């Protein structure tokens, strides 16, 4: 725990508004009122709250009995107003992001736009002017609701309905912050849009909501990173990400999550890929107490493509239950899943995936590959791939391997003068390389650095 690099926390004082702990209908209505939302959104939140009460807790995957729903702050508003430049951010928040290394990339203009969310509020966002001129919208979700209500209303909660599952319902009831991206037809954003999410308050629930709409023929790469400091009690992160990739468009969504090890990270991420569209999820899961996350693509248009590349690292006491879902609902759709997991100590990784080929989705093809690396004799890894095939001409393949850092490999490298820790790190870097090479450079470096931190003392 002491190795956790982002384990400082800022002062707990000075929040402009908090909902208090626990959740009631009144809290939900109060959040909506506080945000001055249109009535349809308030009604949707309240419907979602009812669904949240009705929906059962998942009876599979990780043990979620440790979540104390009644102790959670569902909405905490930072006192600062949104800033227009890094320099305008309050010093303590600026310092936080400095430590995370975020302004670097922003200053150097390596990215097309950036947003930063602190607790429930997005405090900073910026889009490159030329993109703004082309009509690219990159806003925090709350602002977008007011400024682009028509587009927002047309798409919000269409990919993930309010009652989809217990945690999606909870998010829909209390969502706050997150990113809203709208890429006009034919516009290709050449370098990534980025967002950073941080839970700073103890017992905080963070419920950001991200909605990305890529109009026909457009392209965008969105990157998010998440952290939380360490507190003695658990926090809940339950985001919802909806992505609509219209005809011929392509969206790439990259997450590197590095939660502290008392965060329950229960996220619903789903994209719809229309005709000849491409959706790519790149997902790095490090840290957290429990992660349950299965990025999904609903391939609804002919020729749509879906891809998930994911890497998970489970250290002591952690359960990374991550995977992917591909639903082939149209002809000539293809999907590809590559999942890599590393487990250490009492950590547990699980790949839980679904490939469904619906009737009529002729000539669908899917390939799934899961590789698990175990660093010692006490960790655990599972593979739970579901394949449901209703179309006779589908071609589906699934492959998995489990391996350990072998004594032979270590001996070979040690005999060439590489010490054991470095040898192990090299093996792990080689193992995750297929994912790391898909990341933007600074994220690839960050992923390797985070894994190196997790691995200290890996070999007993």
């Amino acid at each position, binding site marked *: 725990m002491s190795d956790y690099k982002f384990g400082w926390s800022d002062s707990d004082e000075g929040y402009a508004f908090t909902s208090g702990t626990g959740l009631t209908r009144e809290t939900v209505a109060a959040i909506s009122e506080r945000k001055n939302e249109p009535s349809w959104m308030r009604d949707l939140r309240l419907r979602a709250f009812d669904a949240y009460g009705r929906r059962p807790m998942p009876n599979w995957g990780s043990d979620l009995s440790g979540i104390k729903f009644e102790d959670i702050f569902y909405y905490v508003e930072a006192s600062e107003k949104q800033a227009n430049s890094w320099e305008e951010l309050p010093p303590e928040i600026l310092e936080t992001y400095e430590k995370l290394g975020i302004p670097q990339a922003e200053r150097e203009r390596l990215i097309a736009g950036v947003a930063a969310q602190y607790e429930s509020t997005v405090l900073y966002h910026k889009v490159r002017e030329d993109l703004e001129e082309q009509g690219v919208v990159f806003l925090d979700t709350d602002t977008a609701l007011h400024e682009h209500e028509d587009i927002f209303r047309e798409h919000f909660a269409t990919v993930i309905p309010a009652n989809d599952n217990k945690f999606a319902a909870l998010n829909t009831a209390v969502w706050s912050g997150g990113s809203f991206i709208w890429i006009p037809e034919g516009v290709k954003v050449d370098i990534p849009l980025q967002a950073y999410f941080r839970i700073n308050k103890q017992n905080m629930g963070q419920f950001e909501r991200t909605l990305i709409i890529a109009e026909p023929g457009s392209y965008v790469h969105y990157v998010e990173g998440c952290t939380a400091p360490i507190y003695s009690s658990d926090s809940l992160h339950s985001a919802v990400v909806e992505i609509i990739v219209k005809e011929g468009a392509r969206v790439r969504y990259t997450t590197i999550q590095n939660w502290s090890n008392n965060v329950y990270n229960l996220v619903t991420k789903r994209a719809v890929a229309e005709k000849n569209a491409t959706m790519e999820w790149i997902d790095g899961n490090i840290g957290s107490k429990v992660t349950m996350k299965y990025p999904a693509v609903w391939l609804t248009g002919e020729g749509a493509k879906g891809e998930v590349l994911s890497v998970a690292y489970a250290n002591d006491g952690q359960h990374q239950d991550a995977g992917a879902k591909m639903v082939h609902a149209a002809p000539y759709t293809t999907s590809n899943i590559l999942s890599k997991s590393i487990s250490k100590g009492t950590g547990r990784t699980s790949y839980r995936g679904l490939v469904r080929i619906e009737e009529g989705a002729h000539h669908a093809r899917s390939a799934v590959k899961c590789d*698990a690396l175990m660093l010692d004799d006490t960790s655990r890894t*599972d593979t739970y791939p579901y*394949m*449901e*095939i209703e179309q*006779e001409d589908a071609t589906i393949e699934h492959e*998995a391997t489990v391996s350990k850092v072998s004594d032979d490999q270590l001996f070979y490298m040690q005999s060439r003068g590489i010490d054991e820790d470095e040898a192990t790190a090299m093996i792990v870097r080689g193992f995750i390389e297929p994912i790391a090479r898909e990341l933007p450079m600074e994220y690839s470096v960050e992923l390797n650095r985070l894994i190196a931190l997790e691995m200290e003392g890996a070999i007993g």
Partner: protein
Amino acid sequence: MTTSSLRSGPEKTVAPVDRVAVPLDALTEDAVRSLATGEPDWLVDRRLAATKRYLDQSWPDSRKDEFWRSTPFAKRFDVSHPLVAEAPAAVGTDTEGDDALPGSLVASLELSTAQVRIVDGELVEVVVPTALAEQGVVVTDLRTAAEEHADLVREHLGSLTTSGEGSGADEDRTITVNDAAWTAGAFVYVPAEVELSDPIGVHVHVTRDGAHLPRVLAVLGHHAKATIYLEHTSDEGVSALVDEVVEVVAQDASQVDLVSLHEWADGIGHLSLQKIAAHRDTRVRHAAIVAGGSTVRLRPECDLLGPGADVRPLGMYYADEGQWFDLQPYVRHIAPRATSDVFYKGALQGNSRTIFRGNIFVHKDAVGTATDENNKTLLLTEGARADATPFLEIECADITAGHGSATGQLDARHLFYLESRGIPRPQALRMLVHGFFGEILRAIDLPGVEERALSHIEAELASTDLDNLGINDAALRGELRGEL
């Protein structure tokens, strides 16, 4: 049948009990007591303990129970069937010309070997050749064995299901009901060091509507070797639920092959747990040939309890219009340095459904485990649905594990190759389907089994319109695009 056989009909076993026609979903303690009339007290007590568990349990719910996720229990199995209460319509004696019972595979091999027939919840025939009896081999009615071989039966019956301490302790009601109310059972015992060259036959046949609860217990002493053919057949037009439990205890260094043939007519729902305890250095093969029945949910399970054990669960299934096969091979590596290799192949045509749900569990102490799991499914025509879930749960790093699953169609390139050599299309298609299954049939390699399996494949192919078989031409199209 050779003249050296000892024959015994039901008159030589414990007298048939008063059979009660209680519905399977309304079992009572009184009904179970009545079923157990004449049994030793310990067995009655076990039945009653199981009845108590049964009363506390519900039937499986696919929304709540992960292992029932793919098969809606209430839709596919009728638990209102009463236990079959009438004696079998025809107590066959396996004489030639008596067509009341279909010939079993073992009988057709014309071997001098042991056989048991269970018809409509009653053991109607036991044949044990003198030569086997003299070696100490026991093949008999389970009730008789509970008296005559009380120590063996008491130790092992239920040891792998709900009565045991092991992995069966939290079994669902479909198993508990058999523990409580099994109606006819077979007991097979092969003493230590005895190696049998010919298969022992256990044939379950159904002629009457109702619930049938057969039970099989087989125990192999150390260094023993045996093959058991477990056959399931029924008359046409019968509507029945067969809820079966099979336990096989393979003691140190023994070798056992268990072949389970499912050749039901339509109208039979079959629930079967076939569980094998593999102790030190055993070599176990389980081969499932599933070709008939309206719904078959088969759980071939192997617990690797001793170091060096080796198990090979094999499966071949072919589902046709209206059939629903849910196959759940489960391997638990509990001991170190054991190996397992699961291999299932299936084909579907018509409006049919198959589920392959493989499970490999490696306990943290099972160092040096080597395991592999593979499933391949061929979707031949429209309307078929195949689910595959090859699971791995690994608690121990010092192992090698892999799994693979593939679902697809016949490959147009293979068809093209055969046709280009002058083989007519229908024959070429047949060859491809045969070739697909050939791999698994060669792995089974036991007398009579391949022929029997091939006859099912032939029958299925004969009933299908070969011109309408789906052919995957994606690769072919890809190659053509490449050339252009």
